[in-house]
């Protein structure tokens, strides 16, 4: 491999990090908000609003059923309006983040469902407000599940970011496709894939470590 190729791969690693971390942060934060909304607005829950709940649920399902590659193209006008272009690394952040939100929301809802109902009842008996129940009971008690959700999301985004390479997002996926696949360079293909395997492995280990640390048992 030429040194130019090595530089290209290093740049790509940086781009992938940038894509995954930024879209991960946006997706996780907004996904938690949406997941909490899904959880609390359901029937018989602390902020029961069944109609709103069904609406959010529908949006989440639509978001999750559209294939990422289609979502990316469909969002192009919106992306251009938001960041001025629909091609490039920063532009790819928009579909990546938007794809992550409903994904995270469902995972968060699942994690919150694991919190025993008795804890919410206990907090209500103490006179806690819904907001206090969310911030002091639900989210802290679901911490392990939330970290697992974040880990799964980041790993999924590493895969999605490679797909975003198709619209010029840069990153390892683009290098693997443009140089490894299109120009028949098996070495480049192998190295880029290996780097992605290492990244996924690293994220998983980090996630497991934090989950373990959050469990007091």
């Amino acid at each position, binding site marked *: 491999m030429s040194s130019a190729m090595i530089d290209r791969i290093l740049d790509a690693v940086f781009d992938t990090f940038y894509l995954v971390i930024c879209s991960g942060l946006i997706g996780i934060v907004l996904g938690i908000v949406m997941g909490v909304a899904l959880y609390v607005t359901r029937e018989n829950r602390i902020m029961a609003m069944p109609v709103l709940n069904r609406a959010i649920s529908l949006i989440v399902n639509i978001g999750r059923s559209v294939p990422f590659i289609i979502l990316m193209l469909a969002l192009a006008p919106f992306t251009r309006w938001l960041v001025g272009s629909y091609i490039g690394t920063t532009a790819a952040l928009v579909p990546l983040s938007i794809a992550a939100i409903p994904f995270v929301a469902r995972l968060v809802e699942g994690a919150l469902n694991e919190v025993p109902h008795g804890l919410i009842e206990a907090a*209500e008996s103490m006179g806690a407000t819904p907001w206090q129940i969310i911030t002091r009971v639900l989210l802290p008690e679901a911490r392990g599940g939330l970290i697992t959700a974040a880990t799964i999301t980041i790993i999924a985004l590493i895969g999605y970011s490679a797909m975003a390479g198709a619209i010029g997002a840069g990153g390892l996926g683009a290098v693997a496709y443009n140089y490894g696949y299109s120009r028949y360079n098996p070495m480049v293909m192998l190295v880029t894939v290996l780097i992605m395997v290492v990244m996924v492995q690293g994220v998983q280990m980090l996630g497991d470590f934090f989950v373990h640390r959050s469990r007091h048992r």
Partner: protein
Amino acid sequence: MIRLENVTRVYGQGAKAVTALKDVNLEVAAGSITGVIGVSGAGKSTLIRCVNLLERPTRGRVFVAGQELTTMNKTELRKARHGIGMIFQHFNLLESRTVRGNIGLPLELIGTPRREIDQRIDELLELTGLNERANAYPAALSGGQKQRVAIARALASNPQALLCDEATSALDPQTTSAILSLLRDINQRLGLTILLITHEMEVVRSICDQVALISGGALVETSPVGDFFTRPTTEEGRLFLNDFLQLAPSNTLLQRMTDHAGDNSLAVVRLTFRGQALSSELMTHLEQQFGIRLRILQARVENIQGRTLGLMIVELDGARNTLGAAMDHLQTLDVQTEVLGHVQRHD
């Protein structure tokens, strides 16, 4: 302190409606301990949840500390709940917080300054005997310790009333009695009013002043504990009491016993004493008046709020024609008699 007026709770609507509570009226005096007892499904849980409105009654009014909860808006209700502690069968502690963190939670909710919270936590650790476990997480605690944490947490905001939802049902007998004496202690030291629900007569017997028996969603009998244990007024009450005060003949006795009296047999009789114990005077009287000697085979005596409740299985040795008269005499002394069978004279 706590008053329920015609509280009714219906789940569902129309044909599928289930009435969990029917016209419940209950008054818990300030500083007293009242136990609501009933089999599972009788409506106990619904009843206690109606007191702090975790369940909203379909009809009826709920008063705690002179305030009507059923007419309050959400904010007022939350404020009222700060004055009503609650503990649960499964403790409901936050796994993500230490013992200190759990105890301090109710105070954090009302915005108490950190230093005051820490001070209050120290007092409560002392009161509940948890000093050594202050920084442990719930997962490392035994069931009894967890319930102590829950009690400390429920007391943090200085409530006037404490609701106990089957608080000892998940605990072993020894731990149960330790938790019950802690509750009794708190009740006496702090003058805290306690309403508890349970399916165990032992809980009622050991700490309650007043008992209310719930059956099919209705309170069928409410009385001072001493009265209930010696003289239940309803059939449900008697059934509950009989289950609790079982004194069944032992297997060896059952093997020896026959249904019919023989020429040389003794009657085996179960005696139930209410309010007084079997005295030597009574035994002497039976012998002198009726020529009957009484031999105790099995016995159990309970003291419930200063009232004696005794159960005995005895052999009555005497002429058969005086036996009936002797039993009648016992009845007039308010001793319930029940012939279980007959055994051959063996000495």
